[in-house]
């Protein structure tokens, strides 16, 4: 894992010097994973591919913004993909097709595993998982619905049949408690 991270860092450093071959290699190594993230949020293969394209264009154009002190290269890449995917689902006003599926927390029955039809297990960092488990169920679910699948506050509100202000409160308090837990 560390070797892979070092490799990505070396590639991205070359990208920052304008090396297009390194950029192509970076794409080869990360595109499938990043496409999975885009798909997780857009729930549409075509949209996911569009998001991936937009993200890689932004990655090249803004490559000088990345600094190692801010985090791993993959974290930076994945964040750009997620933000473009959030923008896409907001712009298209499209909602996931599994609205009627019971949101079942982050476990081996999580919706993305069903969507992507894979047997992969979901492994979050232990600290994050532990802290998420310490939240109230509604808080945890709201945070995960937003982060993992790009649900807006309004959509979460609809899902829980609760006012938007309540959802805002769940998110705010949940994230606050999560931060305290992760910092402890």
């Amino acid at each position, binding site marked *: 894992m560390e070797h892979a991270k070092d490799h990505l860092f070396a590639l991205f450093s070359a990208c920052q010097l304008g090396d297009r071959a390194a950029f192509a290699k970076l794409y080869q190594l990360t595109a*499938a994973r990043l496409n999975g993230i885009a798909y997780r949020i857009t729930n549409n293969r075509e949209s996911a591919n569009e998001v991936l394209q937009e993200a890689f264009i932004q990655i090249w154009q803004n490559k000088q913004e990345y600094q190692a002190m801010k*985090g791993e290269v993959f974290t930076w890449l994945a*964040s750009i993909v997620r933000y473009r995917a959030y923008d896409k689902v907001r712009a298209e006003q499209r909602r996931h097709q599994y609205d009627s599926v019971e949101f079942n927390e982050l476990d081996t029955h999580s919706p993305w595993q069903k969507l992507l039809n894979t047997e992969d297990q979901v492994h979050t960092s232990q600290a994050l998982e532990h802290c998420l488990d310490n939240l109230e169920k509604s808080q945890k679910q709201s945070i995960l619905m937003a*982060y993992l699948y790009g649900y807006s506050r309004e959509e979460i509100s609809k899902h829980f049949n609760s006012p938007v202000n309540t959802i805002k409160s769940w998110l705010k308090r949940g994230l606050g408690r999560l931060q305290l837990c992760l910092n402890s």
Partner: protein
Amino acid sequence: MSKQLNRYQNPTIIEHLASQYVIGALPARVRARVERLRLQNFALEYAINDWQNRFVSFDETTPELDVDEQNWQQIEQQLGFVKPHSATKPRSLLSQFGEWLTTPRLVLTSFMFSFVALISFLVVNPLNSADPLSYVAVLENQQDDAHLVASTYGESKKLVLNIVKSTPLDQEQDLELWVISKTDQQARSLGVLPQGQEIVEQQLSDAQWRLIKDSHSLIVTLEEKGGAAIGEPSDDVVSRGLCVRLTDWRQAST
């Protein structure tokens, strides 16, 4: 410092904005504002990175999904790494010519046409001056240099080619002249250009004359010795130029 800016120095607000931004819960308008703010607010940028690092394990374990094979090509094209690929269905020569003929080129071509055609008409014209010049085309190469001036004369139905700039050829190569039709945009041959001649005079058949009357433009292509075997021009276009009906030009210039 304004009250608005002070607001974004407040750690509680920064933390709130950063966390909500990272989980994608902010409305689009606020998201856009945060994206601008983070570029100039170090504390906000730091907090965003912190939250991204906390949540990234979700992304690292998200299953991979195969990418559309054309995705990378499109990224390269949009970033200008490569020239755009031609569409699956080959574009017509007329449409390619339309893209090539940008406004500056049109102006330049028009100017050159006027100048060279006049010279051609007054000096080079080997025919009887009573035979009116009907159509003319100035063909330019990729460097926008005049390569050839083609003139046709209505009464004698003759084509006169004035080779302005010679093109180096291998022994196994020839240049071929083509007419691009206005009607169906197809290219039809007017024959191989004889090598080593500055002025070529060719009698046109009735069929060839009809091609000239229906011409949009002329192109010269590089072909194998003897000309294109399949009756279609190769992709090696040496020069091209709009075919202008001289009566129109005369009317336009008076």
